[in-house]
């Protein structure tokens, strides 16, 4: 076995957990992170020391401090490259990475790859979701963590899931309590799911803390309410909401939407164990298990990678943590389960390509997912279906699942400037058929 490093992509809790475990086993690691700092979605760091800290449980701060200390202690064994975007794999299993600071694309030949690129938020489309002023709740949250500043003006938080509660409480603590939190589900009507969650007291305590904060600021938490449409009104937004049989309109500056988290969408690359370069997924990008379990899942993936490379035995030490997280997430999903209102024909589905529900309705009812992409062009824009992919799948539940979005490989997974590519030396990679396919498609 050579001394080739293992490439870990993403320096969130999962990527850090994996990188530390590999380094501890004596394996060199290249850790690439697209941002200019480590932390991932949950530990997004303030832009400067002057930025006020966002409301969060102490255990998250402790967990991050431990990971950061581990990274410092690993020294040269972990080659951390920030502002470096993983672009995908070329035909020869080279990993292509784009160093945005030096504007240079580089091909690495790692011994193995662990993708810890995190989850993507689900957003069910409704007319107007594409308007400026509409953001994901998690996106607003990471910006709040970065700047310490809540957005100006009235904010409405809507969709489904516990992140709504967290973001609303954090906005309130930062000085701008939202006008309301609209949860589509009806958690109070799911007592067995509520009871199942008590097995994870730290998470429950976190949720209770957020709820208490909202109560103190008089923020209503409305259940069974869903956004049906949004329109711009000058600088503001008119948000139409259905609550049971009643309709009402909120006039706000910002609408923050979130319908849960989705794994596997961030790169579209799947695991391979038997190729020359094994590829494993870790953290929320593999399975939504939450921040605490992401570190454990990173370690699990590292142990499996060591076993695949013949450098150690897979340990089962983290299985218990992962099992508990899995049960908690399953209970959460049952708690807030509620179908979104079906979007009318004018609803934009694929923002990149400007495609609407009506365009989807024009395609053959028995079209496969591959046809929806190649003929209908759904999911073929720059976001590569990271957002619209789930919407298309929900609107066409019967589309042949064996030909899901990932059956159409695309490279690169992110935009890359021609200037960066010009400096890229490997001619073999440039004649990669996947690159050709990509350019012909446009």
């Amino acid at each position, binding site marked *: 076995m050579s001394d080739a490093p293992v490439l870990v992509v993403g320096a969130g809790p999962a990527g850090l957990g994996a990188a530390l475990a590999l380094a501890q086993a004596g394996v060199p690691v290249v850790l690439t992170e*697209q*941002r*200019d700092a480590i932390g991932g*979605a949950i530990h997004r760091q*303030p*832009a*400067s020391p*002057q*930025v006020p800290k966002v409301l969060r449980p102490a255990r998250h701060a402790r967990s991050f401090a431990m990971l950061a200390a581990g990274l410092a202690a690993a020294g040269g064994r972990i080659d951390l490259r920030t*502002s470096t*975007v993983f672009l995908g794999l070329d035909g020869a299993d080279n990993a292509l990475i784009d160093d*945005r600071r030096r*504007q240079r694309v580089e091909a690495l030949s790692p011994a193995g790859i662990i993708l810890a690129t*995190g989850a*993507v*938020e689900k957003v069910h489309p409704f007319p107007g979701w*594409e*308007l*400026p*002023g*509409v*953001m*994901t709740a*998690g*996106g*607003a*949250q*990471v*910006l709040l963590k*970065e*700047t310490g*500043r809540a*957005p100006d003006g009235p904010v409405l938080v809507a969709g489904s899931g516990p992140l709504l509660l967290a973001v609303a409480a954090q906005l309130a603590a930062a000085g701008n309590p939202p006008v309301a939190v609209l949860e589509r589900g009806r958690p109070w009507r799911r007592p067995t799911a509520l009871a199942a969650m008590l097995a994870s007291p730290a998470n429950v305590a976190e949720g209770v803390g957020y709820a208490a904060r909202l109560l103190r600021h008089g923020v209503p938490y409305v259940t069974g309410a869903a956004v049906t449409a949004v329109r711009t009104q000058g600088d503001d937004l008119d948000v139409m909401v259905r609550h049971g049989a009643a309709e009402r309109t909120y006039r706000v500056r910002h609408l923050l939407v979130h319908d849960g988290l989705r794994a596997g*969408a*961030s790169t579209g690359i799947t695991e391979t164990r038997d190729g020359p370069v094994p590829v494993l997924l870790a953290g929320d990008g593999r399975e939504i298990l939450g921040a605490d379990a992401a570190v454990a899942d990173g370690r699990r993936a590292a142990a499996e990678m060591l076993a695949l490379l013949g450098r150690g035995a897979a340990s089962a030490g983290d299985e218990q943590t992962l099992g508990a997280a899995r049960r908690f997430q399953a209970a959460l999903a049952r708690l807030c389960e509620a179908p979104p209102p079906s979007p009318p024909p004018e609803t934009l589905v694929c*923002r*990149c390509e*400007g495609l609407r529900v009506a365009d989807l309705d024009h395609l053959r009812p028995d079209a496969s997912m591959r046809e929806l992409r190649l003929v209908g062009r759904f999911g073929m*824009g*720059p*976001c590569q279906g*990271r*957002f619209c992919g789930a919407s298309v799948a929900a609107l066409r539940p019967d589309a042949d699942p064996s030909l899901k979005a990932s059956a159409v490989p695309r490279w*690169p997974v*992110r*935009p*890359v*400037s*021609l*200037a*960066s*590519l010009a400096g890229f030396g490997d001619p073999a990679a440039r004649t990669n058929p996947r690159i050709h396919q*990509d*350019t012909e498609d*446009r």
Partner: protein
Amino acid sequence: MTGTFFWQGRRVPFGEGQTLAAALLAAGLRDLGGPDGRPARIFCGIGACQACAVTVEGLGVVEACLTPAVDGMRLGPAMTGDDHV
């Protein structure tokens, strides 16, 4: 670094360590002018949706939510196709 960059010629101040996205939003610039007149805007905050793509002079098309602001940077709406793979 604290400083100023230019969005379509308009001065946008930014604080130490801020991304283009944070500074644009703080300046009230929410519509980043997407292709074919469709609005583009900061949406996911984590580099996934590509709805915050902007063209930065000398850098090409980048995600505003991932790119640290630099003093004197010049940027505008992203154009699809041209300098972009």
